């Protein structure tokens, strides 16, 4: 059968790979048939418990097999899932529940106790068994009772690919996150396109350390399930645990981001033993640019592994990738458009720029999501009509304006410059923070760097650098002197601050806005 809805991916794989391990978490495993059966208990349960077509169901769980059962179960119930990261504080969890008007929350008793909120919600506890299946007074259902006592139900879905499968809330540590609305088609196409250029097959054993409320992490799940691969769930905490698991489990694919590479290559905790990564077929990077010096470290540390540098935004899932064979020549490139996507680089006038000209990256084609839940204003700003339609512009075509500045070279390879609103205007120049950060990261003692502009009395901006370093105090004068050796004056930061470790957002990205707020 064709894949129209996300649970079709699971159904199809359960036919071809029924006894194969679909998901592994520590010592727990579940094969495709079992995963399908459990999801087909969850679907009818949700319906029996009053969940209607299109309603939002929250999943507030740590990395676990139960998250995945819930994800597919919700699809079987014709509803939309919303992964909520358990590292979020109560206030942020409540914001998400209210914003998407969730009617039911799948969680554990402990998570609910931590996050009890005054919102009418039905609850399913995944971890414990209660006295009976349903506790009417508290509106609580105990999943462990249900799964023992029920059979997988036959489900008749009425939804189509255009319907909403999931809403993704990504957030900084402060502020109210917006929900990006994802259709079944987005997820299925995402899995298909990514599987094709990463050459994913049922032989793959993919490690999942990124959260599922992050499109990059969610795509690993859909990709692995759709191809009959095994997904190994792992909570990322310390680099050595990760490296050990990759070796022990013979992991074939690792998806990471810069903060993860920073941890792995932190000189202070440099792995001294030689790991056998011969099984590791590929590594991907997304969620932020990796400095060239780090790319070289990755190549040295994982010599037999193909490295894919990629770029994407939640609003359009994934936009570009760099073929691994280009990485020696173009370590700074984010590559070219993925299959079935076209990338436009538009200058200030809204026209396609020439090679080398800085412009905004605009994504056209597959994987464009529906917009932001509850936010027509922001949706209109980002999801716009294709500006190149010219005299037929009554025709409807939506493209996504990324808000990122890039350049394209003569051969069509793209290079990330900076966030459009992050460019620093200093001493008459327009400076990309990324450029300064990369120079700083090359220096001794600099583990990571975040750079931003700060306005001074004259109305001009100065470059402020926040350095993550292992030493107790940073030497501002020394760093400035080192910068002056390799950088023109207008690129040298005029202010330095030092942190032991950068704060991260719930997705694990460096929380740049928090750092900027602190040191502005």
């Amino acid at each position, binding site marked *: 059968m064709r894949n129209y809805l996300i649970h079709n991916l699971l159904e199809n794989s359960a036919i071809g790979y029924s006894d194969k391990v679909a998901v592994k978490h520590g010592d727990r495993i579940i094969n495709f048939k079992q995963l399908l059966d459990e999801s087909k208990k969850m679907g009818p349960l949700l319906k029996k418990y009053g969940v209607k077509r299109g309603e939002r169901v929250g999943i507030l769980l740590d990395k676990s097999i139960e998250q995945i059962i819930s994800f597919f179960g919700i699809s079987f119930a014709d509803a939309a899932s919303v992964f909520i990261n*358990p*590292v979020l504080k109560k206030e942020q969890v409540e914001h998400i529940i209210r914003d998407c008007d969730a009617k039911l929350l799948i969680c554990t008793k402990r998570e609910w106790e931590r996050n009890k909120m005054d919102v009418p919600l039905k609850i399913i506890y995944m971890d414990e068994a209660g006295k009976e299946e349903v506790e009417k007074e508290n509106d609580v259902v105990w999943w462990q009772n249900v799964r023992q006592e029920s059979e997988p139900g036959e489900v008749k879905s009425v939804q189509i690919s255009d319907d909403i499968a999931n809403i993704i809330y990504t957030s900084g540590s402060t502020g109210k996150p917006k929900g990006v609305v994802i259709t079944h088609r987005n997820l299925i196409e995402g899995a298909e396109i990514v599987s094709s250029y990463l050459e994913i097959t049922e032989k793959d054993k993919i490690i999942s350390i990124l959260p599922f409320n992050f499109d990059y992490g969610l795509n690993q799940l859909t990709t692995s399930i759709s191809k009959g691969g095994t997904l190994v769930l792992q*909570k*990322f*905490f*310390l*680099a*050595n*645990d990760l490296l050990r698991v990759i070796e022990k489990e013979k992991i074939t694919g690792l998806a990471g981001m810069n903060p993860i590479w920073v*941890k792995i290559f*932190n000189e202070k*905790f*440099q*792995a*001294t*033993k030689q790991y056998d990564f011969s099984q590791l077929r590929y590594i991907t990077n997304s969620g932020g640019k990796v400095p060239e010096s780090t790319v070289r470290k990755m190549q040295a540390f994982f010599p037999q592994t193909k490295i894919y540098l990629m770029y994407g935004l939640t609003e359009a899932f994934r936009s570009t990738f760099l073929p691994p064979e280009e990485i020696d020549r173009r370590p700074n490139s984010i590559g070219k458009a993925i299959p079935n996507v076209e990338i436009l680089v538009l200058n200030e006038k809204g026209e396609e720029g020439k090679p080398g000209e800085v412009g905004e990256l605009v994504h056209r084609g597959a994987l464009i999501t529906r917009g932001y839940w509850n936010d027509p204003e922001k949706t209109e700003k980002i999801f716009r009509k294709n500006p190149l339609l010219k005299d037929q512009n009554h025709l409807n075509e939506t493209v996504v304006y990324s808000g990122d500045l890039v350049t394209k070279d003569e051969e069509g390879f793209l290079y990330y410059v900076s966030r459009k609103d992050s460019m620093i205007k200093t001493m008459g120049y327009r400076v990309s923070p990324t450029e300064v950060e990369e120079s700083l990261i090359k220096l001794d003692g600099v583990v990571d760097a975040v750079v931003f502009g700060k306005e001074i009395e004259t109305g001009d901006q100065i470059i402020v650098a926040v350095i993550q370093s*292992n030493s*107790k105090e940073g030497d501002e004068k020394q760093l400035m002197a080192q910068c002056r050796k390799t950088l023109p004056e207008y690129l040298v930061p005029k202010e330095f601050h030092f942190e*032991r*470790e*950068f*704060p*991260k957002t719930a997705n*694990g990205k460096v929380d740049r806005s928090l750092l900027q707020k602190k040191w502005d």
Partner: protein
Amino acid sequence: MQVSTAEIENRLIDYFKEKVDTVVDSDTLLLEEKVIDSMGVIELVAFLEETYKVEFIDDDLTVDNFKTIDSIVKLIISKPR
């Protein structure tokens, strides 16, 4: 620097009260209860190295060693000082 396990334990309880405003005991599951996350562990390691004049090697840095205050104390005591 000779310190008793009780002293290290109390110092760590104070540390977590100060850093993350959370009251823990020697058995609290630090990772599971979200007292430390991957961000805080590097800071904690630096604090331990400075305070107790020990040096950690990468083999020390595992989830198991930072599971509870009890396990951290055991790790520190095991290091030559």
